[in-house]
């Protein structure tokens, strides 16, 4: 079946959980900015968690489906469809998403997953490296995506347990573990709120707030970074690196947003604020394991809900 993109929206890309295993060659992770939304959207239509889906940004697309299918949207609310549940689309059906009412991004999963060729083991779009997804770029008006022809329906009435969902907010407190240069900065980062600036993108969420002064002077040897790394460039305004971040960075690392709170950062839009709160590594690991257990339970529960 075909999915015709009548209007592409602001930044609509094909994403899965990213391109793991090639960082030694300098290949960034890419993948959905909000991986929890992607995983749940996929589970809600009976897909594997890592299937390719559409990532919508701030202003959604207008789509037409050539055949009946099952879709689900997760993350931010772009109107048109209810969040966090499977929705049947008829043959010839059109979905016209609007501007995000909550959050910044959403993942739209389609039964069977979007059919694009994997590049280095992933269907995600790396916009900066122009790699993977739909020709390495964001979708444009008139593009036509493909998805498998399969009839899949959800059985009965049910809704997912909202306790598995990230606690999205326009002013979240985001938990971090220490970065390698945390000791050179002191605790200023925990004292104030930071505002998300319009320069934020899939590489990094750029923040404005009190200038974070570094005691240690001098250039650092570049080193590996990871989505969630909070870098402080010389202007003292921190950047939270996100999905498309390069694999090696040269700025001091003050902290790292923990895995379970990255979706909260992914859903912030310009003007929103966040605060940071320190936790120990062991707590970050426990929270990540608890999230994995909750998603595994959701997965098991949903397996019987499709035919």
């Amino acid at each position, binding site marked *: 079946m075909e999915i015709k993109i009548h209007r592409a929206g602001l930044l609509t890309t094909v994403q899965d959980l990213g391109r*793991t295993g090639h960082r030694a*060659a300098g290949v960034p992770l890419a993948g959905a900015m909000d991986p929890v939304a992607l995983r749940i959207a996929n589970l809600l239509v009976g897909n594997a968690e890592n299937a390719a889906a559409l990532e919508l940004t701030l202003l959604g697309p207008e789509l037409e489906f050539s055949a009946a299918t099952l879709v689900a949207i997760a993350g931010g609310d772009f109107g048109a469809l209810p969040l966090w549940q499977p929705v049947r689309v008829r043959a010839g059906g059109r979905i016209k998403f609007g501007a995000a009412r909550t959050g910044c991004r959403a993942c739209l999963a389609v039964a069977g997953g979007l059919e694009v060729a994997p590049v280095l083991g992933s269907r995600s779009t790396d916009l900066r490296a122009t790699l993977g997804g739909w020709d390495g770029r964001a979708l444009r008006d008139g593009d036509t995506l493909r998805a498998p022809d399969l009839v899949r329906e959800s059985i009965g009435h049910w809704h997912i347990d909202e306790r598995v969902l990230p606690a999205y907010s326009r002013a979240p407190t985001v938990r971090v*573990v220490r970065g390698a240069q945390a000791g050179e900065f002191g605790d200023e980062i925990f004292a104030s709120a930071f505002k998300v600036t319009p320069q934020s993108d899939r590489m990094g969420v750029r923040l404005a707030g009190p200038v974070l002064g570094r005691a240690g002077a001098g250039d650092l040897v570049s080193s590996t970074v*990871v989505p969630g790394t909070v870098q402080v460039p010389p202007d003292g305004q921190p950047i939270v690196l996100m999905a498309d971040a390069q*694999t090696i960075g040269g700025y001091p690392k003050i902290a790292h947003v923990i895995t379970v709170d990255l979706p909260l950062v992914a859903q912030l839009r310009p003007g929103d604020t966040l605060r940071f709160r320190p936790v120990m*590594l062991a707590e970050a690991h426990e929270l990540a394991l608890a999230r994995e257990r909750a998603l595994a339970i959701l997965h098991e529960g949903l397996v019987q809900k499709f035919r």
Partner: protein
Amino acid sequence: MTLSPLGDSALVIALGSGLDPSALPRGRALAAALAHDPIAGVVDVVPAFATVTVFYDIAHIGTYAQLCAELETRAQRADAALLSVATRTVEIPVCYGGDFGPDLAEVAARTALTVAEVVALHYGADYLVHAIGFAPGFAYLGGLPEKIHTPRRSTPRTSVPAGSVGIGGAQTGVYPRVTPGGWNLIGRTPLKLFDPANTPPALLGAADRVKFRAITAEEFAAWK
């Protein structure tokens, strides 16, 4: 050797400090050993500079302490086996000057050398790949002779062709693909530094040695 966390999904094994070149082959040996005999839950291994970064999936490693202990054992074992790891030298043909190196004359003027001297210094040196990063396939090369260190252009170009060889401050390197860039362009290679269809996708890897070789425009054009 020290292990330190990089967020809650990766850790950094430091085998030396700064740009210590002796740590590079050790990092490469450890990465090769982990590729040959993987540890459950380890999803990516990146040798870079004097470190190896190990990415893990917390749900599949047992405990973090177990992973750290296992990695220390592996690193010591890889060190012991180091003598058997061969160094690799990759030759990169470069057509210097002309349309491929629009800044070569500027580099010569700034360094008070002739164009021929700049070119000879550039291909005469032995380079070491400290890391691949910044962009897919981009090598951080050490070894640029000090005489041809040249500050970056004050206005970066909006588009630098793939294969361009440049000098930026104390660094030299090859642009793997078309990107904006601020380095002084002195030549171009017909080689592909990054191709997702290849295994591995990058031509160069950390700890590789690199030699540049001057080729003519005719050789460049005939390159397959």
